[in-house]
């Protein structure tokens, strides 16, 4: 029987996890040619993280953001998602090293969609994945190159990243909503 996420009380704060993420990304990219590295955040949680990482890492290359709603695999079930902000990849992805940033890695379907979308922009040299939290309940063969926190047991509910007006991150657990 899977337990609810909110029983996992020993998870650090979002801010603490962000610092771990920052160090993880720094290590990950240190041997790559810096001008060819671009962060790509998945809207909206991943994009917030990518924005802060972009400031803190002071990368020369612009960051991008991805709205994966056109590449999801659940269109027939749920229809078009309401997310309004469109993807923005203002740089040429060809031969670049992309670091995809997301808040929570769960089944892996979001990352599958993100990769398909990225490749429609061009052929990157490499793609790495960094996430704040890895729930490790994969339904596809996807893994993160770095995660700040791992949740080993299967659990119900969802983890949601929030950002205050001042830019501070926090994590909230939302219980499982029964399917409509």
């Amino acid at each position: 029987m899977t337990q609810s996420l909110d029983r996992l009380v020993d998870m650090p704060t979002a801010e603490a996890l962000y610092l771990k993420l920052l160090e993880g990304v720094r290590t990950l990219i240190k041997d790559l040619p810096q001008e060819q590295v671009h962060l790509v955040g998945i809207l909206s949680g991943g994009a917030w993280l990518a924005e802060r990482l972009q400031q803190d890492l002071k990368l020369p290359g612009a960051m991008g953001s991805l709205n994966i709603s056109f590449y999801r695999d659940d269109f027939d079930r749920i229809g078009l998602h309401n997310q309004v902000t469109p993807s923005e990849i203002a740089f040429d992805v060809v031969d670049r090293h992309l670091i995809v940033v997301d808040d929570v890695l769960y089944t892996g379907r979001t990352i599958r969609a993100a990769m398909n979308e990225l490749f429609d922009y061009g052929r990157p040299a490499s793609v790495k994945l960094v996430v704040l939290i890895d729930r490790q309940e994969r339904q596809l063969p996807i893994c993160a190159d770095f995660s700040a926190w791992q949740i080993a047991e299967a659990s119900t509910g969802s983890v949601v990243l929030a950002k205050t007006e001042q830019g501070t991150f926090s994590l909230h657990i939302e219980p499982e909503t029964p399917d409509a």
Partner: protein
Amino acid sequence: MRNPQLNKHGELTHLISTEGLSRDILQHILDTAQTFVPLAERDVKKVPLLRGKSVFNLFFENSTRTRTTFEIAATRLSADVFNLNINVSSAAKGETLLDTIANLSAMQADIFVVRHESSGAPYLIARHVSPDVHVINAGDGRHAHPTQALLDMYTIRHFKKSFSNLTVAIVGDVLHSRVARSNIHALTTLGVAEVRAIAPLTLLPSGLAEMGVKTYTDMAQGLKDVDVIIMLRLQNERMRGALLPSSHEYFKHFGLTQEKLAYAKPDALVMHPGPMNRGVEIESAVADGPQSVILNQVTFGIAVRMAVMSIVAGASS
């Protein structure tokens, strides 16, 4: 009576007319279109959203340009597109509209994009397709051309940001124009300050006041301080004679020249659904001038049609 365009969950499952659609639904279509606009800049302009779906373009009236934009829109969504030009004479050879639809439905069509000369034809079709098939009206008689109105609204929103304080004038053959009707409903729903129609009386239908429109038979008065001018094409094929003496006289009094454009606000938008009759309803200097957003309309048209197809295809059955 529930609007036949909405399913029982209130989702848009057909797009037949802008009339009767809430402001929320119209805004949702415009917002969704906005997310499709950047795709045109990419190398790969497609997204896989409608992969595996079949879109049948059913044009009972010839139209290369509208059909092509729907084709582009569907292709960019990765749908399979099938074009059927059924001109009137082959339909007159015996197959009724409903028989045509039944035959095509048997070929697993997911979306019908329909253009027909009879007002109301898309409603008839929508009543006879199964719940997971969607009808998009590409123009029915004089009644509606909702995707044109939506791309016109998108264009207005793009340049003017807000609808609230706008005065919009529609000039030309309003009587026969489905574009005019769809625009009137969209504009009033989205809350513009004033909608005007300018034309000789022979080209103005009765009942415009009830639709929220002020009528003018003089360009100088009608265009005064207007923010948006939507020019309509003078449709030769729709006029059964005796409505206008000549296009020469029409152009002199109702054609949009630079001189008449000056009555409107200096930043007024000049729009036209196309194709234009230069020298009949609009002067080239205006059509190609700085206030013209006619080409933008065409670009936005693809994104708007992609949005409409995605939204209806995603409605639950």
